[in-house]
């Protein structure tokens, strides 16, 4: 049986669809017996759907570096 820490890591991987088949089985087994982890798993899935729904955008890191440089020149 896996520990809660391991289960949490697998659960996070699952949010990015990066779990292997055995990991999935391990997680399901763990969630059956662990209330805390199944609550965490539900919330984690909800966070994923919130992030999808919000259609987040971000500036690429290199644009930010440029921006910072420009800004510093003007200070």
């Amino acid at each position, binding site marked *: 049986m896996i520990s809660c820490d391991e289960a*949490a*890591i697998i659960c*996070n*991987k699952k*949010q*990015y669809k*990066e779990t292997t088949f055995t990991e999935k089985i391990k997680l399901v087994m763990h969630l059956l017996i662990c209330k805390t982890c199944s*609550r965490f798993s*539900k*919330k*984690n899935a*909800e*966070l994923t759907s*919130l*992030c999808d*729904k*919000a*259609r*987040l*955008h*971000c*500036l*690429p*890191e290199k*644009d*930010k570096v440029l*921006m*910072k440089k*420009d*800004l*510093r020149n*003007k*200070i």
Partner: protein
Amino acid sequence: METHQLHPENWVDQYADYLFNFAVSRVSNAELAKDLVQETFFAGLKSAKNYKGTAAERTWLIAILKRKVIDHYRKINSIKGKAEVRMTYSSQNDTDGDWLEEQVADPFSILENDEIENEELGLAIQECISKLPKKQSLVFTMKTIQGMSTEDICKELGINPSNLWVMIHRARTALMSCLNQNWFSI
């Protein structure tokens, strides 16, 4: 009342993504949104002496960005830029009870609100991300928003996958508690 101070050297790290999200949702063009954010920072710098410290830094920057967005629509002379509110008081249904409230969109329809709610949600998430430690927010953004693969992120940041998953875990847990009160249904 608490007075705030400007720290232009932290602007990009703290507010760039937040302002960018705000701008993208209004101009629907990433390149243009980026320019508007840049202009906002410059304008902020220029008028820093007018900052009285009554509003938080971010609120103040958003106010500037809003002007920039309006200026943009004016400049391209779009219909949006020329928009003004007109009301017609219909004489036909000028009977008892038929008043303006009944002529506006159905307040119980949830469809129109979706767009607005999603924008608010986006800004709320962005605000929570900006409260994370720098490294965590970077990893989370790369993974979740840019959708980069684990391998690429590890290579770029020089960390190993288990480091990455631990950081993702911390970031996600922090985000859950940050968003908790308002956004989670469970």
